[in-house]
């Protein structure tokens, strides 16, 4: 057994303190599509330290979920992965399936979008929460049941003791999402990936569930990768935001900075398209022309080139490199027209 027995404490580093929990470098994924093999992720890089909360935003088909699935070793069959994903001091690219199984649900776990289908309909909730405890922590079934109850209380399930023996179909969407969060947190993972955890829930419930996740992440010192297409969700819940388009991160930085500067034309387009209270009746919203291209149709250079209003021939020459935004090394965007795209609302802090 070469795999080290996983650490129980999320906060306890398995390696030297200097190494971040998760380091993704130039992650590339190619997939089989009906039109042949295509590059789905094209060099994604980012770092997560313990306690970091990072958001991944973009439209469907931009590679957000695929990034989450790659981190969990859950890519579709036929996917090829290149680059590096170091987690807990260990390279995950090329792990064997049984090694993934030891990591998943233990050191890292994922909350999925669809609370209606993510639970197994033929097992009571308590047993589904106990499963990772039995598998990874080798608890006996009584201890696991007791721990499952404690977890249900932790995710603030109303009448937790009664819900232990409830079936998934007896729960509302919000309650099911709480069960899924309890399952994800059961083994105290160091990394939590939440893929659109509240998209299927309504607005008031959304905030509650996100606050729950945020609180638990903070309490346990986990790192959180939150995937969402909802800009409002990002603004409130993560310290850093990465905007994805065409399989690359086109803009990344502290959430406040990204939202204040909207450096990349794509980020800007996303914000402009949001309906806001108080717009006069009949206003037409500014839209991003066209739609997210199929993977096989992504342009060679900047992936956004075909939809961008600032496109020039240079944009199509090569994929743009990340450029610091407004002289801030912590905030980067992949656009060769950065100054121009920010010009209309350039703010005083831009000292370049």
């Amino acid at each position: 057994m070469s795999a080290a027995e996983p650490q129980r404490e999320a906060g306890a580093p398995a390696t030297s303190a200097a190494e971040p929990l998760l380091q993704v470098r130039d992650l590339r994924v190619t997939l089989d599509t009906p039109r042949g093999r295509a590059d789905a992720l094209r060099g994604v890089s980012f770092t997560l330290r313990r306690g970091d909360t990072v958001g991944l935003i973009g439209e469907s088909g931009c590679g957000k979920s695929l990034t989450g699935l790659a981190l969990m070793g859950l890519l579709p069959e036929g996917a090829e992965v290149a680059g590096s994903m170091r987690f807990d001091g260990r390279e995950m690219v090329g792990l064997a399936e049984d090694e993934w199984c030891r990591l998943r649900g233990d050191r890292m776990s994922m909350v999925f979008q669809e609370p209606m289908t993510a639970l197994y309909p033929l097992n009571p909730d308590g047993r589904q929460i106990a499963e990772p405890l039995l598998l990874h922590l080798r608890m006996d079934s009584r201890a696991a049941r007791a721990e499952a109850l404690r977890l249900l209380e932790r995710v603030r399930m109303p009448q937790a003791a009664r819900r232990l023996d409830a079936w998934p179909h007896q729960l509302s969407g919000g309650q099911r999402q709480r069960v899924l969060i309890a399952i994800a947190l059961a083994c105290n993972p160091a990394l939590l990936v939440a893929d659109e955890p509240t998209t299927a829930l309504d607005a008031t419930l959304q905030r509650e569930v996100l606050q729950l996740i945020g609180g638990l992440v903070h309490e346990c010192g986990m790192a959180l990768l939150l995937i969402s297409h909802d800009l409002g969700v990002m603004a409130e819940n993560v310290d850093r935001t990465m905007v994805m388009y065409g399989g690359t991160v086109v803009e990344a930085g502290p959430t406040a900075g990204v939202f204040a500067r909207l450096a990349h034309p794509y980020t800007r387009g996303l914000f402009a398209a949001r309906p806001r209270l108080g717009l006069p009746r009949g206003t037409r919203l500014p839209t991003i022309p066209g739609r997210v291209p199929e993977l096989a149709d992504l342009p060679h250079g900047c992936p956004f080139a075909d939809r961008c209003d600032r496109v020039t021939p240079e944009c199509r020459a090569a994929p743009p490199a990340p450029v610091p935004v407004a002289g801030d090394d912590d905030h980067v965007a992949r656009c060769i027209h950065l100054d121009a795209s920010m010009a209309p609302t350039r703010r005083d802090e831009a000292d370049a």
Partner: protein
Amino acid sequence: MTPLLQVERLGKQYRLPRQRLLGAAHYVQALDEVSFTLQAGRSLGVVGESGSGKSTLARLVTALETPTSGIVRFEGRDLHALPAGELRRARAGFQMVFQDPFGSLDPRQTVARIVGEPMEAQARSSAVERRERAGEMLAAVGLRTADLDKYPHEFSGGQRQRIAIARALVTQPLLIVADEPVSALDVSVQAQVLNLMQDLQERFGLSYLFISHDPAVVDLVCDDVIVLYQGRVVESGPADRLLRDPEHDYTRRLLAAAAGAVPHPTRS
């Protein structure tokens, strides 16, 4: 003038599954004493959280379900009192667009068949006519006539919602009941569909009964708003007034929840 749609003291009870075999059945009042009037050419927004009765209202107004009490008048006629044949013909006047663009289109039918089907139900058209008209409607929603022979899986979420709108338009209705038509769409696609719906309203003189949990979306599209809470209308009025200066406590909370979720890019 007869209002396009008049809803009077509408109520709907659903029976809950029995807890015990011989126990008394329990009921839930999904909708209770809901009344409003919608004039032709205007649009009414219905806001409220899930479980507030929004979708029940949509299903009653489109006569997909029968109310426990109350009346739905479409162009002055009590829909739920119409004989089946007349009701089917009356359906040409009101159509529905659903939230889920993946679940609401039959994956085994071509777009031509899907869009033309409401005409078929009206039983007075030839296949050639239907196909021609379906093509016109596709063009109206920004798709191509060449898309007629494709299947739903060949389209993105936004395009599917356009197909659903084309299907709703094909009988030249006066009213479209849209139940969360943009909630499942990405931000920029949502904007495209909202713009399209407004263009179509101007072009065809449509009225919308527009159901949404997002007050900003309703504010954009609707003249008037009703707020549903636990099956009852707690507040109603012009969108401009109600969404800026709400009177009911629940409306305030709903707006606060939505406002809290809106980022402010202008902040320094």
